[in-house]
């Protein structure tokens, strides 16, 4: 029995039944990482000894009968989550020497549930990117290949390392964060399920901030059910995060079995973009048919401000980022490059520590907040953001969930779309509106492109109604019967 090609639910049952131990499960993953990570670069930092120690503790817990469904489950942790005693880089050179003395709330809750940390997964620098090529620690290779081609493809981003690790069987699941699509788009590119929960569902405490009003943690895994199990442990109110919601965490796993009979599913006209590829729209049609067959009612809806989503996003997110990243100044932690005086030290430290995409966004953000431009950019963007939120609120008076494609294309090649940042930004066109509105959204693998690459569908739900999102996603998953595997994977 392969210990690598399991779902979390299967592994959990097998651990409970003592078919294998957490130490065996972890050792198998450690070995797989040792073999494949040098190629895929999915992890920036691996923690095999820590993982084994945690696995021993998990086995003790299983033996003592105090295990949770996640006890002994090996995970990849996106290197944006601060982990006590384990280097946390945000894929930036500026944090290369940074070892946090504290644990993020989300990873603390996962550790308390008994999960095992295999290592810190690669990402776009400070989560800024859609292809994982902006990482200061090298790009991640997507374990999927086009039919008959060995060309390296990107895993999507920013949670590209998390996605590649789970897809290539280097972890059973992973944490991701999503600011404009950073969980959903890489999930779509690597044949995984991934959910960005409602803004406020998970604590942001201890997660290196990119854009505070958009950042949300969420799980990535091989099935909808696995995501539900993980999110159950990650979510919850945290007094350390004023924007986390004081709400009970529902039983997400139970919600995956609800079915869609009688649910109204909205199909937004504005997501039918000009030039959308035929296979993306065909897949979308399939999704509609699958839900209809299972008893859902399909409703045409309008989200009229969708077309402004990207523009708004690329003002709001860089604005917040420009401020959030001011703390990386070489004074208290992380990298420092000495200079003639304070200003010179700042300039040298930040010039050496930040990569080009991060610098670009800091400049955009500084510009849109500056005197004389604030009203025209930032304030206007906030107003349009409200209109986008209103679009969703209006739509959700008529429907229970919305179905769209996750990304406009399948994974693209490393080196493609690299000339023009704006082309790259278009990757997020379907994912950004839900981020701006703060509503939950999930990507599930729904089929393969003609070239043999996974394609995802996106289910968007009402604020704090992840349960319906899970129900619809699970229905799509059952109908799609997605069983394809990436060509590069640990066996």
């Amino acid at each position, binding site marked *: 029995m392969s210990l690598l090609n399991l779902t979390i639910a299967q592994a959990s049952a097998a651990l409970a039944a003592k078919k294998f131990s957490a130490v065996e499960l972890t050792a198998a993953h450690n070995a797989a990482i040792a073999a494949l990570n040098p190629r895929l670069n999915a992890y920036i930092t691996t923690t095999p000894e820590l993982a084994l120690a945690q696995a021993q503790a998990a086995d003790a817990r299983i033996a003592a009968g105090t295990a949770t469904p996640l006890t002994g489950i090996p995970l990849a942790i996106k290197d944006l*989550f*601060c982990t006590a005693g384990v280097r*946390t880089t*945000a894929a930036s050179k500026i*944090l290369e020497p*940074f070892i*946090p*003395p*504290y644990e*993020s709330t989300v990873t603390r809750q996962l550790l308390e549930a008994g999960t095992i940390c295999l290592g810190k997964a690669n990402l776009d620098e400070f989560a800024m990117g859609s292809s994982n090529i902006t990482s200061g620690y090298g790009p991640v290779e997507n374990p999927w290949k086009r039919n008959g081609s060995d060309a390296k493809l990107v895993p999507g981003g920013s949670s590209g390392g998390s996605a590649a690790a789970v897809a290539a069987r280097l972890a059973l699941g992973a944490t991701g964060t999503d600011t404009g699509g950073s969980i959903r788009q890489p999930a779509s590119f690597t044949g995984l399920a991934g959910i960005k929960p409602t803004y406020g569902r998970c604590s*942001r*405490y*201890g*997660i*290196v*901030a990119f*854009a*505070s*009003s958009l950042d949300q943690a969420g799980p990535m895994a091989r099935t909808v059910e696995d995501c539900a199990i993980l999110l159950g442990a990650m979510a919850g109110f945290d*007094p*350390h*995060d*004023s*924007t986390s919601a004081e709400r009970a965490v529902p039983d997400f796993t139970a919600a995956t079995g609800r079915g869609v009979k009688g649910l109204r599913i909205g199909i937004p006209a504005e997501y039918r973009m000009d030039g959308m590829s035929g296979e993306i729209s065909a897949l979308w049609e399939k999704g509609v048919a699958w839900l209809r067959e299972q008893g859902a009612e399909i409703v045409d809806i309008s989200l009229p401000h969708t077309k402004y989503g990207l523009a708004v996003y690329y003002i709001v997110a860089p*604005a*917040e980022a*420009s*401020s959030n*990243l*001011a*703390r990386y*100044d070489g*004074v*208290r*932690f992380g990298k420092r490059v000495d200079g003639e005086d*304070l*200003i010179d030290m*700042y300039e040298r430290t930040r010039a050496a520590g930040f990569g080009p995409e991060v610098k670009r966004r800091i400049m955009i953000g*500084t510009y849109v*907040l*500056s*005197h004389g431009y*604030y009203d025209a950019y*930032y304030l206007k963007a906030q107003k349009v953001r409200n209109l986008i939120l209103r679009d969703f609120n209006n739509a959700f008076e008529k429907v229970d969930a919305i179905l769209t494609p996750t990304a406009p294309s399948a994974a693209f090649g490393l080196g493609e779309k690299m000339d023009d940042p704006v082309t790259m930004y278009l990757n997020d066109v379907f994912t950004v509106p839900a981020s701006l509105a703060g509503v939950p959204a999930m990507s599930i693998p729904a089929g393969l492109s003609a070239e043999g690459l996974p394609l995802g569908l996106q289910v968007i739900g009402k604020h704090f109604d992840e349960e319906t999102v899970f129900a619809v996603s699970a229905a799509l998953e059952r109908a799609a019967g997605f069983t394809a595997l990436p060509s590069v994977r640990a066996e």
Partner: protein
Amino acid sequence: MAYSLEGKTGTWEVVCGLEIHAQVISESKLFSGASATYGGAPNAHVSFVDAGFPGMLPVINRECVAQAVRTGLGLKAQINLVSRFDRKNYFYADLPNGYQISQFDHPIVGTGDVEIELQDGTIKHIGITRLHLEQDAGKSMHDQHASKSVIDLNRAGVALMEIVSEPDIRSPEEAGAYLRKIRQILRYLGTCDGNMEEGSMRADVNVSVRKAGEDFRTRCEIKNVNSVRFVMHAVEAEALRQIEVWESGGEVRQETRLYDPARGETRSMRSKEDAHDYRYFPEPDLLPLVLEEEFVARLKAKLPELPDEKRRRFCDEYAIPFYDAGVLVAEQATADFYESVAKGRDARLVANWISGDFFAAMNRTGRSIENPPVSGAALGELIDLISDKTINGRIAKDVFEEMVETGAMPGAIVEAKGLRQVTDTSAIDAAVTQVLAANPDKVAEYKSGKDKLFGFFVGQVMKAMQGKGNPALVNEAVKAQLG
């Protein structure tokens, strides 16, 4: 008589507004659990939030919010039930996040009003524009190491209230009176200790000058002035500078200046062109601050009596002059001390004793109202001895000095030294007879119309009686025997 300055081209009026930064009294900082105590070893009171570590988030301290609301209520200001925090972005080594969390568009407290009293007794109202909450920065020190600067983040994140006045101040005296009044109100409320030496209160002073009837001219801001006296000096020095600029054909440029107390002048720090672009935007890590009316009402109900009201009550309840009441309410502890002694006694007499001999003794001995030269009970006993005519006022002064010196109770001193007042008229008459007999020439002068000598005779009688004669009875007896 309004304050003005004479220049070569005529009379100038001074226009001034103050931004007072007052450190909030609270256990912990505005957005973290670290201690807000003054002092301590460098960087002893710093949490990861204060130090701006990755992933750290601010959480508002409820007590700091309550303190701001109390202060707003004390300033008779509007309390905004919805307010918001913003980020003020700039780089400095002692500003860990690269931004200060402050309130820009939507402060927690809106317009209010403060009453100040000038030397000539005039009462003037100074408008409050707003009060907002913000974090303090840390401290950079450049003189601790040959080539490095060192940073102490103990203060980083401590809550400050910025209290902004309208440009209603027209003289150094008004500026001083306003600052003292704000300090007094805050101390009464227990929201700021007002300690300017330790930096828990400091002021940015905005000054401009104009000719009568003009609109406001360009103002300059003098940053971080840290005493009442310096604020008063800075207003005058800056006004004189601006008058000279205008009168020599120049133009005052809007800029930030520093006051140099050693030279008694202000100098330019940075001009408007070099001013920071703070790139304010709403703090996304905090939700808008929403107060319930009931929360505000509860704080209002528990507000202490404030100096203005206390002063009026003292006038009414104790029938003491307005001026005296002002002296007594200057510090809450003094007012409490006064009331504890005045209750059930001759309140006017108590007021005179406290503002006279008691304060003099306090200053002379370097003590304070919290550690007074004589206790309230002892002073009360002394007043009782005067009121029941056991001793007269003259003897009481001696007894008081003895009390300060030895700590003995006045009753005991009077008994031990036999200082009881003599009210026996025959003893007084005998003393008068003796004095008149010893001064036949003065008696003759008096009788020929030199009325002023009356006091001389009374003094001589008192002296003869070792000061123990009842003054009223002595007066009467002298008058009677002189015919």
